[in-house]
């Protein structure tokens, strides 16, 4: 099997298909570049919303905020996930990637899509936020950019499944079930396919509407858009949890405690999570209460159950592995003696903590039917999702990078001293930032708002409860720490890729 297209990884003994490796590299590099762009935008946005600084003018604030949402939530996360999918199907199963050329086509579409989006936004042709709620309208090329990107991502997911099929047919891995990480990624990819179909269902009409070929109902748009927007967050959750299992194994040699439970929990995600989208629409007209309860209650809580299962299973697996290493005294010796100076481990542990304690709890609470009245479109929501998709998913992906660099890029991580600090800057920064946002939001601080001090000179301007300013400062300091953490991450990865010592 191992033709000249393969090399054997000296650390894991896995056979790595070189064309797959190149695609993984390309997608990972694109991801990091977009994290850089999104991160520069984040700094601009955060320093504007922190009233102590109020950096950008109004038009650029809204423009850069649109860019931040798109570059981060769409581009960075999905490029990284596509890299993870190729790794899960090809590397973990010793298999060749089914069709590398198709992988490059997908990559090309995604790059062109992102470029089109970025140019339109920066050119001021799409000041609509990443949700682009009609009647706000962007240049048709903006919607086209999103469509191209989504088609590319869809092709990437299909290539993942084709590779799984090929690996199974050719028997490239010991006969049996897929490894848990691959299984979890397969669940993520299934959710992704359903998500991208909803994406087509909304962006193609939006594109035609922007060209003037059809009308667009605002409530219907919101319903279908969130079928995409919500379930795309579940791709992130499933991918993040797969990465937790991966990192548990790579950092402390963890074994899943009970494969039955873990796999069942992943299946719950596929079955239930992409239906819970109406928690974005709880204070919208046009949808009945009964439907809102059914959609967000019954179905979402079964998906939350899955997260609760993983919330026990992942740390428990880590604890068992560390106890095997002899850290058995008391309840928490294993936690104290855990490899905290390994950035892969600290990033994973912080990710589990932030996602669970901050993101998970607030997600269910703010998404419950009545509480949402006091949370919708306030900064409570922005704080919530910076705990899930940033403190959770992004931080987990950052931790994984410290293993991808030596294993895939075959470079020794440069600046390991800085790398060790990085998850702490980013994680603690995010805890303060998201916490500050949620607490300020509890007083009604709105999201997507340029001027909460003077309201652009509105005659109805008013002053907030003074406590708000304290939370805004917590937010600002946290944002600065997180930006520093993000900058270290980018310097370390880019430095390693170009200048790290070659391994092997």
């Amino acid at each position, binding site marked *: 099997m191992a033709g000249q297209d393969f090399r054997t990884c000296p650390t894991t003994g896995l056979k790595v298909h070189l064309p797959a490796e190149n695609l993984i590299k390309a997608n990972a590099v694109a991801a990091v570049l977009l994290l850089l762009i999104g991160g520069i935008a984040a700094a601009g946005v955060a320093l504007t919303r922190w009233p102590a600084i109020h950096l950008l003018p109004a038009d650029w604030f809204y423009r850069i905020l649109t860019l931040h949402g798109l570059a981060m939530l769409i581009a960075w996360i999905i490029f990284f996930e596509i890299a993870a999918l190729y790794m899960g199907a090809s590397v973990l199963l010793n298999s060749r990637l089914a069709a590398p050329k198709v992988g490059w086509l997908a990559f090309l579409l995604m790059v062109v899509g992102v470029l089109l989006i970025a140019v339109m936004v920066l050119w001021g042709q799409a000041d609509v936020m990443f949700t682009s709620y009609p009647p706000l309208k962007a240049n048709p090329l903006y919607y086209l950019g999103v469509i191209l990107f989504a088609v590319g991502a869809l092709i990437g997911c299909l290539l993942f499944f084709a590779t799984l099929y090929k690996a199974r047919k050719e028997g490239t891995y010991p006969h*049996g079930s897929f490894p848990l990480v691959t299984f979890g990624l397969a669940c993520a990819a299934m959710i992704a396919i359903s998500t991208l179909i909803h994406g087509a269902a909304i962006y193609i009409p939006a594109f035609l509407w922007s060209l003037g070929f059809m009308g667009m109902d*605002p409530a219907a748009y919101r319903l279908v858009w969130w079928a995409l927007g919500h379930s795309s967050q579940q791709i992130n959750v499933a991918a993040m949890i797969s990465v937790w299992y991966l990192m548990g194994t790579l950092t402390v040699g963890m074994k899943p405690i009970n494969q039955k439970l873990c796999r069942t929990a992943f299946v719950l995600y596929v079955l239930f999570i992409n239906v819970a989208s109406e928690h974005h629409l709880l204070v919208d007209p046009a949808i009945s209460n009964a439907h809102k309860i059914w959609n967000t209650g019954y179905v979402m809580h079964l998906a939350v159950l899955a997260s609760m299962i993983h919330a026990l299973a992942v740390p428990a697996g880590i604890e068992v592995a560390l106890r095997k290493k002899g850290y058995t005294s008391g309840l928490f010796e294993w936690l104290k003696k855990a490899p905290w100076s390994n950035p892969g481990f600290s990033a994973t542990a912080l990710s589990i903590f932030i996602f669970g304690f901050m993101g998970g709890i607030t997600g269910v609470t703010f998404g419950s039917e009545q509480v949402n009245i006091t949370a919708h*479109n306030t900064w409570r929501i922005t704080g919530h999702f910076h705990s899930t998709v940033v403190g959770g998913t992004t931080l987990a992906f950052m931790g994984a990078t410290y293993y991808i660099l030596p294993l895939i890029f075959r470079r020794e991580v440069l600046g390991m001293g800085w790398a060790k600090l990085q998850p702490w800057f980013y994680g603690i920064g995010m805890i303060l930032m998201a916490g500050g946002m949620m607490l300020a939001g509890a007083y009604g601080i*709105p999201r997507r708002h340029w001027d909460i001090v003077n309201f652009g*000179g509105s005659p109805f301007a008013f002053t907030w409860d003074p406590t708000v300013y304290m939370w805004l400062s917590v937010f600002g300091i946290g944002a600065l720490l997180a930006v520093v953490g993000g900058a270290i991450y980018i310097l370390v990865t880019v430095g390693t890729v170009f200048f790290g010592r070659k391994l092997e």
Partner: protein
Amino acid sequence: MSISVPDKVWWKPIDKEEKIWLFLAIIWMAISFLWMPIYHFIGKQNPSNESYRVTREQWDTLTDDFIKKYQVKDASGNLVTMNDIPVVHPPAGSDVYLEGRAWKWWPVLELEKGKTYRVHLSAVDFQHGLSIYPLNINYMALPGYDYIITMTPTTSGEFPILCNEFCGIGHHTMVGKLIVK
């Protein structure tokens, strides 16, 4: 290992602690779900279940009539406005209209404490987000929809209304006012 093929038979029984956790988690998920319908019966703050499609013409007629009928007059009989926005004092318990437009909340409503009103909320140009400070009450105002929120103010004072959905470059200037007497 999470990254290797599991044993042939991985469908194994669950341990005691896991069973306890699963039990607690399922119970809590059931409670937190059932709590939402239960709160409809025992709680006093529930999302509205009433909305209608409305055309721009219908909506304009409704709001114009409403404002004409109930706009406040001062001692000398002049119509009262606040920053050029009409101040309207509808009778207790009636239907009231509140419109989001770029970038104003129209009109300024004067309500009475402890009285129940049917607040019709809509928008005429973009999507807007109603947000009443400091109560932190938030609802979406969408063009083409008449969203009816049955509201009983239980505190009095002047309540600023912000817009918390992005509605164009002047979004942050969109502040209005609700007065409860």
